[in-house]
């Protein structure tokens, strides 16, 4: 049997093994925390108007989704290489005819599978709570206003549905996943360079924070808003080295009812793919020579 230089099957095997490894680290406990947050947000502040109650539930849930996906993306990825070195698993894998880039791709895919599955579960839990809350609020409004005519009930349904469950919200979750994917690829690249997990976590967090304001830095650099040479050079360097994570921040407007079009989805998918390819290539160049 000939040995292929690139095998999706080998990458898949490494990815599933990574998922198992992360599940054993009890990393999925955050799902439980998320569910508690969503239920609490869903039934808190009953004195506010229904529209605001539903908006608050979405704000809190999407906020929690973002925080969890980014934290898991950074921490899980940062843990992988040091853990494999510590367990000696890395030597066993690389002793076989597995190219290093396949090992990296497998690890990254494993983290992305875990984040993706976690987001799907959290999205499902959030959707159920939002749907229940929407129905409960509607029945409360109908009872409070003693609405009986079908046109009155339809009007109330329209008011509540504006902030209720829509398919569009799931595209907001997709944007969160894409952002977490970019952050994971970034963490993988830094972990190929780093000597400790802590270094990877701290540096990636710093880049994530800068990455959210990268749009401002880029505008300052491209539009020449800064006059001082040092400021201009620094902003240019940061804009070049960090990803623009703000591109994926569509959730806030999705919550308000803006529709994510296919063109917008393509833009986000394309941007995420660009970062993933770029960071994977750099990760490979750093890892291929790394002394283990």
């Amino acid at each position, binding site marked *: 049997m000939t040995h292929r230089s690139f095998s999706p099957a080998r990458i898949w095997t490494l990815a599933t093994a990574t998922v198992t490894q992360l599940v054993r680290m009890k990393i999925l406990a955050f799902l439980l925390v998320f569910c508690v947050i969503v239920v609490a947000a869903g039934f808190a502040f009953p004195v506010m108007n229904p529209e605001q109650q539903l*908006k*608050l539930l979405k704000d809190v849930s999407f906020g929690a989704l973002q925080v969890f996906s980014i934290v898991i993306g950074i921490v899980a990825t940062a843990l992988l290489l040091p853990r494999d070195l510590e367990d000696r698993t890395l030597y066993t894998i690389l002793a076989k005819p597995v190219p290093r880039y396949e090992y990296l791709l497998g690890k990254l895919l494993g983290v992305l599978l875990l984040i993706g599955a976690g987001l799907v579960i959290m999205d499902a839990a959030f959707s159920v709570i939002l749907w229940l809350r929407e129905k409960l609020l509607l029945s409360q409004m109908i009872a409070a206003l003693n609405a009986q005519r079908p046109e009155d009930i339809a009007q109330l349904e329209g008011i509540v549905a504006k902030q209720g469950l829509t398919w569009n919200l799931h595209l907001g979750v997709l944007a969160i996943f894409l952002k977490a994917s970019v952050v994971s690829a970034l963490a993988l690249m830094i972990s190929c360079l780093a000597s400790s997990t802590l270094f990877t976590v701290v540096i990636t967090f710093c880049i994530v924070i800068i990455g959210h304001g990268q749009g401002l830095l880029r505008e300052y*650099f*491209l539009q020449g808003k800064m006059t001082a040479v040092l400021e201009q050079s620094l902003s240019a360097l940061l804009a070049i080295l960090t990803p623009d994570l*703000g591109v994926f921040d569509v959730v806030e407007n999705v919550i308000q009812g803006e529709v994510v*079009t296919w063109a917008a989805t393509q833009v986000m998918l394309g941007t995420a793919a660009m970062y993933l390819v770029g960071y994977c290539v750099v990760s490979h160049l750093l890892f291929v020579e790394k002394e283990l």
Partner: protein
Amino acid sequence: MKRKLQAIAVLLLFGLIKLPVEEAATRQLRAARLLSPPLDLSVRENIGQMSFAAALGGLRSLIASITYLQAYQAWENIDWAKVDSLFQLTTTLQPRYANYWDEAAWQMAYNAASSYLNNQELNSAVRGKLYHDHIDRGIAILRDGLRVLPDEPRLWNGLAEIYERRQIDPRKSAECYLQLLRVTKNPRYGRFAAYQLALTSDPAQWQRAYDLLKSAYDQKQRLPTLINTLKSLEERLEIPANQRIPDALVPIGQNQNQAGPLR
């Protein structure tokens, strides 16, 4: 070492290539109204470093919800200055959410204004001044909101009602109802504008009101307030008898099942 240098070179090259792509993606998503305009750096002073970082980090909607809840709490404590500043912050964080503008204006023009007007601890001159100041503040908030959302019916309606009920300026109220008619195409707002124009002391405005109401009448609208206002305008404008509507004045009474007279 050679690979490390290659990695740095690739990272820098990739960084340069990605800049225009990021710029185009941001522009496209902003045009689709999916990305908000960049956050004003002055907001940092008001919400603190951590909240500013969180708002910058994609949690802007959540931070806006928190400041909204703080405003709600300030309202319960009847701290109107704090209500105003927190709503200002909330609308700065999420300027495209009409509900925040509407509620901020309602707090100022109705709740704060009435609260000061009924405050017996203040002398009457101060009460009157604060009452009018807060109505003006409510109007200013809605005008700011309309600069961001010029076609938002809720904001035009709020403004029309403040001019109608709080500032008693029928001319301005009518202009807002006409904007509402433009945005929603709902004929009732044309009638509302006409009722307000009929309240002015300017015969030119009465003529505008008459034209609007006559057009609604010709489209088979027969609401009591429409007929009564039209008859009043016919008198004031001295419309020839043969052009007047044949209907008699309609007595307006409160029906138990409706909130007010049919307009």
